[in-house]
Structures are given as C-alpha cells and as structure tokens.
C-alpha cells in the first residue's frame, strides 16, 4: 500500500533517482538497494554509481495495475541484471512488448511513475528502455 510521505521519498532518493547502489566491501557483491547483510555476512558497503546499463532477465506486461498505476496500464516490467552485477526490478518504457526478449540490452531513464490523487504529488523514478 502506498504511503504518502515525503520522508520515504527522501530516504530512498539514492535508490530511486540517482542509480546509486552498494558494493560489499568484503566480497564485492553489488546491490541496487541496501537491505540487511550481504550474502557473505558483511554489513559494510561502499556506495557505487551504476552506469544504468543492463540486460533483461525476465519480463512481463501488466494489464491491470494496483490503484496508483491503474491509468498507466498496460505497462511492461522486467527484472534486469545491471552491468555492475546488481539485479533490479523496473518498468520498461518506450518499447513494444512484442519486441522484448530475455537478454536484451536496456538502459535507465527517469520517468513519471504515478500521481497521488487529483492534486497529489507526482512520483518519479527510474525506468529502463531498450538500447537501439
């Protein structure tokens, strides 16, 4: 359920808008978001900036969305392996679903996500588009 909170947006600013991720300072594994321990057990990470380039691991087209995304449906969503190693979930934009393929190269773009109510805030975030 989407909570309307500018604090949440501030807290997630790096993940959502700047493509800044985290690299384990022990084993080097990269994460798009900082969550708990690394698989190696380490809790210390260095910030890294992702290039925004990656490949599609799997994808779908969502035809009926949750409340906040209803007016955007249908839209494409994918799990993407970034070139630096982190695996992320993101919407695909500026593409035809029929042209998508697993393994296809994509790159990050900033796009509108959804608007909270009639007079609400417009939320932006990172989507990906196929490279041509």
């Amino acid at each position, binding site marked *: *359920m*989407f909570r309307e909170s500018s604090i949440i947006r501030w807290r*997630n600013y790096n*993940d*959502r808008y700047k493509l800044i991720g985290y690299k384990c300072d022990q084993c080097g594994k990269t994460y*798009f*978001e900082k*969550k708990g321990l690394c698989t190696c057990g380490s809790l210390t990470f260095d910030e890294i900036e992702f290039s925004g380039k990656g490949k599609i*691991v*799997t*994808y*779908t*087209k*969502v*035809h*009926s*969305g*949750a*409340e*906040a*995304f*209803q007016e*955007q449906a249908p*839209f494409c*969503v*994918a*799990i993407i392996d970034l070139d630096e190693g982190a*695996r*992320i*979930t*993101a*919407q695909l934009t500026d593409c035809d*679903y029929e042209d998508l393929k*697993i393994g296809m190269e994509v790159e990050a773009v900033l796009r509108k*996500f*959804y608007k909270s109510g009639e007079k609400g805030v417009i939320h932006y*975030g990172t989507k990906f588009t196929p490279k041509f």
Partner: protein
Amino acid sequence: MKVGVLGIGITKFGEIWDKGLRELLLDAQLLALKDAKIEAKQIDALYTGNMCGDSLSGQLHVGAMAAENLNLDKASIRVEGACASGSLALREGVLAIESGQADIVMVNGVEKMTDVSTEQVTTALMGAGDEELEGFNGLTFPGLYALLAKAYMTKYSKLTRDLLAEVSVKNHFHGARNSYAQFKSEITIDTVKNATMVADPLTLFDCSPITDGAASIILASEKTAKAMKSQVYITGSGLANDSLSLARRSSLTSIPAGAVAAQRAYSQAKIKVDDINFAEVHDCFSIAEILAVEALGLAKPGEAYKLYENKDTYFDGAHPVNTSGGLKACGHPIGATGVKQAIEAVEQLRGHAKNRQVKDAKIGVTHNVGGSGATVCVHVFKGE
C-alpha cells in the same frame, strides 16, 4: 512428531455478501467444534491466520476476535505471513502442542475480500511482495508470477501454453466436485487461453480469484487424539524463508524456499517423496502449481509438464494435486487457504472426499506459499 486432528470446519468459499470477517470466522469455528465433538472451553489456545483484516476491513486484532467469538479468555493470536498465514497459524498450533503448553488448540484462517474494489485488493496483496522494490514499480502479484512464468517457460520450453492451462482445467475439474468450492464449473484449455490477459502470459483463468471464507481445524496432543479416536495426524511441519523480492532470489525458475520447507517437513515426518499419495499445493497462479510440484519433489526441475501431459495430477492419477480445486477453483481467501489445504488433507485421509476421493490415501502433504515465495510452509498428514 505427532499431533492429532480432532475436527474440521469450513464455510462456503466465494462472494459471501451477507457475512463479514467475524461471522465467517465464527461459522468455521462452530463447525469445527461440532466435528471435534468438544466444547469451546476445552480449547487451550487459538491461532488465527489473517492477512488483510486491516487493509480491507479496517480490523486488526483478529486473534482477540477469535477468542471473543467463543467467549474464551484463552491465549489467542493472529498470525500473518501473507498468503501463508493459514499454514503458519497451523504450525504455531502444532508447536504449542509439541511444547506441552497446550493440549487442545483451535487453528483458524479467515479473509473477507469482496467488500472492496479489485484495485484495492490488488494494492493490499502487493504488501506481500517488496513494497519499495516491487510495488513502487507498479508490480502486481499476477505480474510477479508472470515474471517467473516467462523465465521458466523460456528455460523449459516443454511447458507449453496449453500444458500450463491444464493446471487450471484440472483444478476446475476438482472444484466441480467440492461442495464448498467457489467455482463448480469445468473449463477447457480454450477457456484459459481466450480469457482476458492479466499479466502476460497469465490470463484471468491462470489466476486464483478474490474470495471470502474461513476454515478451522482443532488439534490435540497424540495422547488426547488417540483417546478420542482421531484418524488423522500431522507428522511433519517445515517452514523456510527467502527474500521478499524476486530480484534477490537465487533462482527465477523455481521457488527455492519450497524445496527447503518440503525437505524439513519430510525429514521430520520420516517420509520420502514416493510415500506421498496426494498434495494440496499453492496454485495462486497456474505457474505456481508447476513450481510447487517441483519443490515438493513430485517432478524434477523442468519436468513438471509431464504430469500434466499424462493427467497424473487428477484425483485418480498417479500424483493427485489439489483435489479441493486448489486456490484457482476452490477460491483463495488468503488467511484461510493454508487451513483449507489442511482440511482437504483430513477429508482425504478420513476417506470422506466422495467423488474426488484419492484411493487408499495414507499420506498427504500441504504446501502454502507467502508472497512470491518469501515464505513456504509444508505439512505432512498421516491417516491411521
């Protein structure tokens, strides 16, 4: 481990407009008491699975409600683990008896989902995924399982669109033979393929419905259960967890926690896969049943399609799966589903499953998934 089943109670599953959360829960509780032939005051503790009481009905504290319904002041707790809430409540009940803290336990599961719009339900259910990493990107539950389906069917192309549809066709066949199922109509492969697309490749008929319903089961220590001539016992309970988001999993063509939970339950029950006569699995989406039968070891990775090619998963087949109709046809009142699966296992082992009875059923397993695989709980049931 051995915990007996004294009684079961279940409401009709479906759109039950004249009953709210409390009434559904009470109906199931009273039916279970009647079946167990005990009085409410004999219950030592209650565990109630419920996921959406707060988001869909504005009602938290369903544990207290379950005790209040029966005028009890006994320990009563709501258990939440998304779609696995029911089996987690069952597991808590088993553990309470195993620990010696309780001799007789009532386990309930309840969900009231049809009072609100489909979009509200879609939003509420997404709380079972990773809100910041998946929900924020517009993903829905059908979307998450569609991502798994796409990955699986690309890697294992022998699972065709038609064979995937066979999951729903078979579950509707069973649902048509279950008196409390939400859908009692048989369907064909074309029904599935021609239905509205929800999240490619999953159509409306690949998806479990929005359902109201409640289920209750009464457990007792082996000693008490034996004295009351119980015919069914729980002999294994396995629980495993994984990341909330799909992107953090070690595999997108399986649900890793499913196999771990199954092995934990089998080893506790001291059984092998070959001992299993039937399984009730978590088919929230058709692809989920494929992943479930592989997690349980009924098929090797990538080979579940064979069971559907050969119609092995029908009640009279070699590996009966979801004789209740599964989540697809019986319905999926989230918190009640795990308890309903247990009730189907008990019906089969008592030999009460009528025109969907598995012949000579002695051992059955239930497999309940929370989210897209972040929680999986497996139980082993044995008939005596």
